[in-house]
């Protein structure tokens, strides 16, 4: 409520000297999470770098971002000052929730950041390498329990892809979904499950403290400062990145789209943005415009295929 009053007061004050490049960024999630932080970091960078006079962040939480997405697509057509933050989780959520609104209904602008997924086992586990884990999976898929984030999310998809790459039936994987990396972490540390899978950043402090063993990461190349092979170099053709993006309203004119692209480009190259990425430990995976749109189409197709394989999408 306070947010409302503050927001209303701010809006009233800022409405007087209306600037051309004012943006409203929707974070389709509650305050504090990854998308919210992305939106607020963008807000900070856009304002500090003078790209936009005033930027507001609006939180519309719910259902993997699909509630916010639906609201955004329905209410912003043709408005060049509206942006929405999203990510890979949204791709899966749209498919599993059967969302009537998809990423085709908005205008993707650029991929901004990304994080690879890490596969770990408890320190006491007899499994030493990713090869050992895959052997166990091949022997009896049900006996290998995986703790990770929400069902149909990036962690679940990665396990499905790994099973497929190793020639194991993906419908037989025993994936135990937890509401977040934290709860999954407790199950792994407590030796309740065979393996754990979540964002690299979530596990790294534990790996450094020696309480869990990092078997592999899902990036396309080894990560600096992380002593673990990639899945690809271990012989499993799986590259997954949990990326975050920014998109614009549907039905933009060519000129408006170009202007938004230019603003985001300026922001992504700015010192403020790069500094923020470094402090937050986010990898810069900037990819914009048509190249990003093409990549997005490819990922949506691949995700749909694997969700079908796991049996989450009929």
């Amino acid at each position, binding site marked *: 409520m306070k947010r*409302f009053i503050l927001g209303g007061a701010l809006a009233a004050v800022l409405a007087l000297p209306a600037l051309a490049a004012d943006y409203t960024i929707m974070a389709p999630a509650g*305050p504090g999470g990854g998308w919210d932080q992305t939106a607020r970091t963008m807000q900070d960078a856009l304002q500090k770098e003078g790209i936009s006079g005033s930027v507001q962040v609006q939180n519309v939480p*719910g259902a*993997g971002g699909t509630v916010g997405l639906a609201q955004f697509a329905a209410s912003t057509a043709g408005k060049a000052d509206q942006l929405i933050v999203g990510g890979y989780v949204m791709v899966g959520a749209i498919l599993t*929730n059967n969302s009537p609104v998809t990423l085709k209904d908005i205008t993707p602008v650029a991929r901004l950041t990304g994080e690879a997924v890490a596969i770990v086992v408890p320190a006491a586990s007899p499994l030493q390498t990713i090869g050992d884990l895959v052997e166990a999976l091949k022997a009896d898929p049900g006996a290998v329990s995986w703790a990770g984030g929400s069902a149909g999310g990036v962690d679940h998809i990665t396990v499905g892809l790994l099973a497929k790459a190793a020639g194991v039936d993906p419908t037989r994987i*025993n994936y135990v979904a937890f509401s977040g990396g*934290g709860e999954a972490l407790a199950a792994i540390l407590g030796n309740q*499950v065979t393996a754990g899978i979540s964002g690299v950043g979530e596990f790294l*402090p*534990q790996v450094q403290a020696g309480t869990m063993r990092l078997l592999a990461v899902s990036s396309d190349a080894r990560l600096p400062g992380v002593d673990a092979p990639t899945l690809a170099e271990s012989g499993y053709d799986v590259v997954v990145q949990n990326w975050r993006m920014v998109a614009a309203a549907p039905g933009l004119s060519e000129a408006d789209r170009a202007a938004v692209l230019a603003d985001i480009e300026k922001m992504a190259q700015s010192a403020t943005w790069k500094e923020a990425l470094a402090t937050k430990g986010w990898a810069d995976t900037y990819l914009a415009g048509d190249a990003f749109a093409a990549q997005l189409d490819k990922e949506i197709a691949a995700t749909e295929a694997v969700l079908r394989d796991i049996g989450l999408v009929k």
Partner: protein
Amino acid sequence: MGTFDLLLQGLAAALDPMLLLYALIGVTLGTAVGVLPGIGPALTVALLLPVTYGLDPAGSLIMFAGIYYGGMYGGSTTSILLNTPGESASVITALEGNRMARAGRGGPALATAAIGSFVAGLIATLGLAFLAPWVVKFALVFGPRDYFALMVLAFITVSSAFGDSTLRGLTSLFVGLALACVGIDQLTGQARLHFGVPQLLDGIEVTTLAVAMFAVGEALFVAGRGNGAPDEVIAVRGSVWMTRADWARSWRPWLRGSFIGFPIGALPAGGAEIGTFLSYAAEKRLARHPEEFGQGAIEGVAGPEAANNASAAGTLVPLLTLGLPSTATAAIMLAGFQQFGLQPGPLLFATNPQLVWSLIASLLVANAMLLVLNLPLVGLWVRLLTIPRPWLYAGILLFATLGTIGANPSPVELAMLLAFGVMGYGMRLYGYPIAPVVVGLILGPMAEQQLRRALSIAQGDVTTLVSSPVSAGLLAVAALALVVPMILRSRGRGRVLAQVASDAD
């Protein structure tokens, strides 16, 4: 004495006048925002986090601790005075607290909540300082099956503790469990009972249900009875302060609440509300006047409020030692740490001891500050109740609506608030207790997920549920809690239990 020295150093740092000022600002802001119904500590911390950005780490952490504890405390004020719990952990406080307030004992209810929060915060913060490494080892032993056993225990103690009639209590509980099924299933990602409404995909918000059932239902009920209502709201009767008898009845619940709340808060998947349920059930069992429960028993405020605050400190155990945020508030606190480039986790105590100890010390300072700020305010708060009733309830409706819309801006949320308000009115009219509905909504999904996780890990083997010592022990306690009253009843002992049974329809 290494730990003790470090704590003293932290305290010395935290007692700097400038930092005390930050603590005061934090506590004031936290209480002010926390008082708004529908806005719990998680949202309070999230909204006010940017306020702390400009400060140095020590100042920021101290203000942060103040906001956190202030938000926790502010929620109980509205529960007691206006029957509008701002978060799930203060639902129980509303039960007895609001009864007390309406009987003119709002002052003692607020005071026992404030002092109980202080006592529990003190005990739990010291527990955090000295026991964290051991508590966390114990917490990690808990797997899905052990959590499930804990939920079973909570269900059994809770369902017998609410209302006069077991049948009506269970009916309400199952209404709550049915509501808990709405939304995306956590384990498979499939949507259930959403009727094509996207806002229902995330399930029903606990605070929306609680505010609707308690505040809106109550307002309708009062309006529906017209003017000749028998139980007039009495602003203040007797002293605003706690009497000697209040103290005598409060101190044991404070201690018991602290010892129940702290370990449950430390469990990575525990949640503060479970501690408050168990504490309420325990106080009702142990009270010398159990018949006062439901009519405004001070034990029913003192115990759960202490448990609530103790588990707030308990939450910091997995956060600081493992980097595990176990509640929404803790997740936002994690973001607060990260703004200084700190990653809470197993290495934090080793790499940044000063900062950790100043945080713990600032929790102690914030805790004391909260007491200093809030005790004098009790007299002011209870004056709220002298507002003429139509105005008071109109105000409650306004705040309930604004709080809900503010927390989740969507017309669907508002429609749910009103629909559940009408449901709450109907339940009141026909004598069904409303708290079990909220309890069912909170515990239902936890119990379901943990059961399914446990079975999934064991590949469908049901014996897994009793094959860990913790789960077997908890289930045994639950079985005792279920069977012993039955035996007592059949032998004609325990008048209270017999009374509960005879009231069953």
